[in-house]
Every structure is written in structure tokens, then in C-alpha cells.
């Protein structure tokens, strides 16, 4: 069932066209992540859904009901603002209590729910503090708790974990996902962290300059990006320019400056293309496709090492290798990757 539909939304700030014909249908209880470069219009999209901004044209539907003109307070949503927007004159507990009071939850239940959520965001002892007496990450968790404690129909989360460390992020992610699934909350999640989006989302929407570039399941976005922009934006990617020599359905043979490569892609491509391959699918050994080059830089990353390689043609390729690899700058190296892991994109 579709709960939230954006139907041809356009939004202007003065003469700036910020959102360009946004169409999106989100199912009941679905968890959607909104990804895209800084300034692409993610926050603006959330604000339109929340009803804080009028839209230039288009409609916003909750279920079958046209919500375009409905007041934000009648949309039953919870929102985490990128700037937190905590109530500065209320304690943490009072911030959380606000939405519950609106919903006429009786005091004892209110107290219980607040305590429970504060526990979840690891701020159990902070109920009596004012926001100004909290660290940045603590404030962000209060903002999150405030939106979650009301268990709304629709959750709009704008970078809710941006200021948290990995361990806390993990906990919070789990908490959000758990609540979201338990209560069946339709969630739109804006994040700059792709791995977060990958792990949490039912679907990912990639935006760019006010336009939706691609919308699909995480695996689809990652493995079969619709455009170069998406490929570049989601995860690390290497792209090698070339020209299609032969194509049979989804399988292509492509002529590049570093030799012919076999690769897969959507059917029907021709002419100039780019072959995309993720660093983690490249091994330092010959394979179905083989490239040769020299190590330009090797960067220690904890878990592994990031290797920058210059191919014969001058193209750059990166790959990760085990941290205790013996390769160092200037070393010659052979790289291999399988055709089914590559992806052909129109150039």
C-alpha cells in the first residue's frame, strides 16, 4: 500500500529552481533513504513533505488523501531537523514530553515512554538538562528521541546521526530500525553515509541537483547504477572509458586504451561507454579481465589498505588490499576482475 506519494513536486526559492519534478511513491512502513550531494535538495524535499514549505506545483498524498494544503501538525509526522531545532527553554524531558502532551498521553505513560526512549538514546540521566548544557552529539540524540517518542505515522530524519561516533550510530540505527519496523512507520531518512543507507533502507533514492537520479533497492543502486553520477556517488568506483565493440544482450566486449574488457550492462547500449568496477572486486592478480599498471600511492586504512594504481593509459584505478600487503609506491602491479562484477554505463 502506498502511504506517501510525491507527485510532480517543483519548488523554487525566488528564481532558483530547487526541486525539479520530484515523483516518488513510498509504501506503508517502508524505509527510504535519500542520498545525494550536499545542496541537492534533500532537506528541501523533507520540508515539503512536512508541510513547512509550500510547493510551486505538484501534490503530496498521504494514502489517497491530498495533503498538499494540510498543516504540518495534521500530518502526524516526526522530524529530526538537520539543525536539531530543540526547544531551548525546555529541559530534555520537556522536549520529549511536548509531542506526547499534544497527543494527550496521560502523564504516567508519558513519563514511562520518555524514560524508555532516553534510555535507548543513552541519555537516561540527562532528562533535567537544558539543551545548551549538552554536547553536540547529545543534542542530536535528543532531537532524534523527540521525533521517535511520539511514534508517528511518518518519520522524516535529516542526518539524524551525523554527529555520532560509530558505536553510537550502530546502536541508534538499530533503535530506529527496530522502532520503525515494530510500529510500521514510513520513514524517509536523509544521510550522507552510504553504508548506513545500504544497511538500513528498503529502497534508496539518489538525488542530484533537485532531480531524482535513481530509486531502487540498495543492491540495485550499488551494483547497477543508472548513471555515472550514481556510480560515483555510491561507494568507490573505478570507471574506464571505452567503446563497445560487441554486445550480446547484457554482455559486452569493450575496447579501451588498456585493452579489451568484457563486461555486463543494460541491454541496448552502443558507442562510447564507461566500464565501472568497484575497488573491492579488483584483485591484484590476473582475472577474466586483466589490467596492468604501477602503484601510485598506498594508504593504510585500519582494516585494509587503499591502493591507487595508474594504468598504462594513464587512467587511475583504486582497489583495496589486505593491510599487510607488500606493495609500495612505484611497484608494477597486475589487476584482475570478473565481467559479471563490472557494469557498463553510457558515457
Amino acid at each position, binding site marked *: 500500500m502506498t502511504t506517501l506519494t510525491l507527485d510532480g513536486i517543483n519548488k523554487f526559492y525566488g528564481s532558483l529552481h530547487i526541486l525539479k519534478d520530484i515523483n516518488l511513491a513510498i509504501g506503508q512502513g517502508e524505509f527510504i533513504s535519500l542520498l545525494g550531494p550536499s545542496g541537492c535538495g534533500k532537506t528541501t524535499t523533507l520540508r515539503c513533505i512536512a508541510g513547512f514549505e509550500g510547493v510551486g506545483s505538484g501534490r503530496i498524498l498521504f494514502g489517497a488523501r491530498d495533503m498538499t494544503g494540510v498543516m504540518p501538525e495534521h500530518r502526524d509526522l516526526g522530524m529530526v531537523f538537520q539543525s536539531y531545532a530543540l526547544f531551548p*527553554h525546555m529541559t530534555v524531558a520537556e522536549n520529549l514530553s511536548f509531542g506526547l502532551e499534544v497527543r494527550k498521553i496521560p502523564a504516567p505513560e508519558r513519563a514511562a515512554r520518555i524514560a524508555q526512549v532516553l534510555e535507548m538514546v543513552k541519555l537516561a540521566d540527562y532528562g533535567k538538562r537544558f539543551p545548551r548544557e549538552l554536547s553536540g552529539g547529545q543534542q542530536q540524540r535528543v532531537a532524534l528521541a523527540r521525533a521517535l517518542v*511520539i511514534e508517528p505515522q511518518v518519520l522524516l530524519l535529516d542526518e539524524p546521526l551525523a554527529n555520532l561516533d560509530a558505536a553510537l550510530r550502530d546502536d541508534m540505527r538499530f533503535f530506529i530500525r527496530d522502532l520503525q519496523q515494530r510500529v510500521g512507520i514510513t520513514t524517509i531518512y536523509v544521510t550522507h553515509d552510504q553504508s548506513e543507507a545500504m544497511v538500513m533502507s528498503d529502497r534508496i533514492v539518489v538525488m542530484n541537483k533537485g532531480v531524482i537520479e535513481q530509486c531502487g533497492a540498495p543492491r540495485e543502486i550499488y551494483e547497477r547504477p543508472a548513471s555515472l553520477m550514481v556510480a560515483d556517488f555510491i561507494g568507490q568506483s573505478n570507471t574506464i572509458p571505452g567503446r563497445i565493440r560487441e554486445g550480446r544482450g547484457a554482455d559486452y566486449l569493450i575496447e579501451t586504451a588498456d585493452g579489451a574488457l568484457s563486461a555486463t550492462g543494460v541491454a541496448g547500449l552502443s558507442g562510447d561507454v564507461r566500464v565501472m568496477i568497484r575497488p573491492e572486486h579488483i584483485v591484484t592478480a590476473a582475472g577474466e579481465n586483466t589490467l596492468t599498471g604501477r602503484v601510485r600511492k598506498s594508504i593504510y586504512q585500519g582494516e585494509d589498505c587503499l591502493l591507487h594504481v595508474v594504468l598504462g593509459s594513464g587512467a587511475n584505478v583504486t582497489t583495496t588490499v589486505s593491510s599487510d600487503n607488500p606493495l609500495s609506491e612505484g611497484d608494477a602491479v597486475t589487476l584482475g576482475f570478473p565481467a559479471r562484477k563490472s557494469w557498463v554505463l553510457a558515457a
Partner: protein
Amino acid sequence: MTVTPDAPRLHRRAPVWWMILPALVLLVGFLILPYISIVVMSFREASTKAVYGDGFTLAHYTDVIADPFIWGIVWRTVRTALIVTVVTLLLGYPVAYHLARTRSRVASLLYICVISPLLVGLVVRTFAWMIILSNNGIANSWMKALHLIDRPIQLLNTPLGVTIALIHVFLPFVILPLLGNLQAINPEIALAGRSLGASRMRTFFKVTLPLSMPGIQAGSILVFVLSISAYVTPAMLGGSQGRTMAVLVVQYLVDNFRWPAGAALAIFMAVITLAILVVYLRLTARAMRRLP
């Protein structure tokens, strides 16, 4: 290890006492000091043979305090000031709110609407009110024309007339401080309230209103104190029914040349005003403490 809670050093360290110095010189040198002789004078015996007598007396104060007639005027003055303060807040807040949020192209014109009453001298403005409020004035003739009344209601020379005119005179004094205050509040905070399901009303009362306390406080103190001490308007529009303490004080001091008694009366009124102000500050302190 001995540690004491430390104040932000940035601010403790700066040699900033000079900032208050000019104000102290002004107020102590040219207000407190001159007032000392006035306070002394208020304890002098009355005399018709000199500005004041040689002896000292408490009589001017005891006379005032024991006089129900004076208390009646005090009550009327305070009541008028309270009404004016409350009504200007009620009328000024929507205007300030509107101005703070409007994106209207005529906004500049609206600013002019708010500011221009201030720039037309008080005397002239009060005359305008006289013309409006008199028995055969504009207000009465229009109300008659609209069949709201069939006989003129007395507005001039009543507390009501004074109240109406004072509200007009002091409205900008709440609008402008509030405007500055409302503009400084991050609009997202109110949106957060809405997103949590609170109606605009509720968001206003629970979020915007508490956050605008500094503006409310500044504006209401100004208007209250100004109303208490307003002279020209009650003198011109109030008649005897609308006479306030300020008018009475001027009558003592300027019409009847009773300087010691007038000073005592004035100081008495100042003490009452101060007391009300202290109570008000106490009452609002709680709300203010919550603000950053």
C-alpha cells in the same frame, strides 16, 4: 588537587568595568545626586513664607499614606497602567509577529505605520484623540451613524478615554522590542513544534511565546512605567475623573507650588511603581531563567 568551578575566563579577564562608567557618572552624578536634595526637601515643613519651612517633618508622607483619596488615585493610575500594558501587549504582539514573519512587499509601509505615530508629537497626537473622543467627536458620531448608540457616550474626561489614547501612544513601545526579539528566534524551532503535532496556537503558546519573554518583558516594563508617569495625555484627556498620580503631582508642584508635599507624593508613587516592578521581575524571572 584543589579545583574550583571556573567561570569562562574569556569574560572574567577582560577589563570591562569602564563600560558601565559613563552610565554611572550620568545616573549618579545627574540623577541620584540631585535627588538627594529633593528627598531632603520632601521632609521639610510646608510654608507660605518660603519655598519650604526650616523644620523637618514626616507629615507629607503620613498625610499621603493615610489619605484614601490619594489611594483612590493611585489605584486608578495603576489600574489604567495595567490595562494599557495588557492591551498594548495583546494588540502589539500580533503586529510584531506579523512584521517579523511577513514577506509582503508592503512590509516597509507597515514599518512606517508602526513608527510614524511615534514621530508625530505627543501633544498633537493627544489633540487628535480629543477630536475623536469628544461627545460630538468622530467616535461618537460614527457610532451613532452605525446605530450602535443613540446618545453620545462620554469618552473625553474619563479614564476610558485616557486608556484608549495611551494604548495608541504606547503601542509602538511594545511592537518594536518584540519585533527584534521575534526576528532573533530561529523559525525552525516553531516548525519543530508543528511537526510534533502541536497546532499553531499551541506551538505559539508553548514555544514562541516563552522564547519571546525578553521582548515581552522589555516592552511591558516600558509601557507600564510610561503609563504610570504619563502626563500630557491624562492631563489633556482625563479631566478630573481621569486624573492620575502624575497629574496630581504636577498640580502639587507646578500649580500649587507645594514642593515638599509634591516631592513626597512623587517619591511615594515612585516607590509603589518600583514595588510593582520588582514583583513583576520576580514573576517573570522563572521564565527568563529557562532561556539561553
